[in-house]
């Protein structure tokens, strides 16, 4: 129930493509769903986040789609660029219980 499943494990797209990363959770106590971007040798950095009362959130080229009934959420990257090549982590937070669960990560490569 604590696990967050993430797929795919790795993803290769051409420049301008739209990579999609999917995550699923079980614990209904989770109330905050962030996505993190991590470059080699660096710590994760918050990319975009959503709360379960919202079905979609867009910030620049990044969009989260959230399906509360299915307990699934996904990240879409529009017009992907080689600079987007990184590892992406979804996460689910229960802020009241200070319970944070991260997905295993997706390594994205955007080819020029």
């Amino acid at each position, binding site marked *: 129930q*604590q696990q*967050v499943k*993430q797929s795919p*494990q790795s993803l290769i797209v051409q420049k301008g493509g739209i990579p999609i990363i999917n995550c699923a959770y079980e614990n209904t106590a989770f109330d*905050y769903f*962030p996505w993190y971007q991590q470059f080699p*040798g*660096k*710590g*994760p*950095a*918050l990319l975009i*986040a959503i*709360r379960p009362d919202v079905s979609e959130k867009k910030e620049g080229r990044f969009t989260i789609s959230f399906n509360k009934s299915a307990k699934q959420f996904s990240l879409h990257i529009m017009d992907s660029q080689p600079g987007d090549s990184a590892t992406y*982590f979804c*996460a689910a*937070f229960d*802020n009241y219980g*200070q*319970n*944070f*669960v*991260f*997905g*295993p*990560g997706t390594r994205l490569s955007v080819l020029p």
Partner: protein
Amino acid sequence: NAGVTQTPKFRVLKTGQSMTLLCAQDMNHEYMYWYRQDPGMGLRLIHYSVGEGTTAKGEVPDGYNVSRLKKQNFLLGLESAAPSQTSVYFCASASSRVSSNQPQHFGDGTRLSIL
């Protein structure tokens, strides 16, 4: 403005040795966290603190101890290092409960190898 600084960046230990990882933040944040990152497993919360003088256990606390004597510092200790503790350790801080407006800020990690 340095943000979250972790010391050291790399360390190799022998089984049974002890060491302390230091995390320092200059953002006056109340909340601080220690995670470990292992291949294929994402980040797992070891311990956290919601303010100076407080600590609490996360998902994987066994084998680790922490202290928060000063608001800006959060120390992670390994009393008797084991090979299973080989990992990359990340510290994070937040001004309050995590939200879009109050995100966690991460350091760049400490890569620890236990032989």
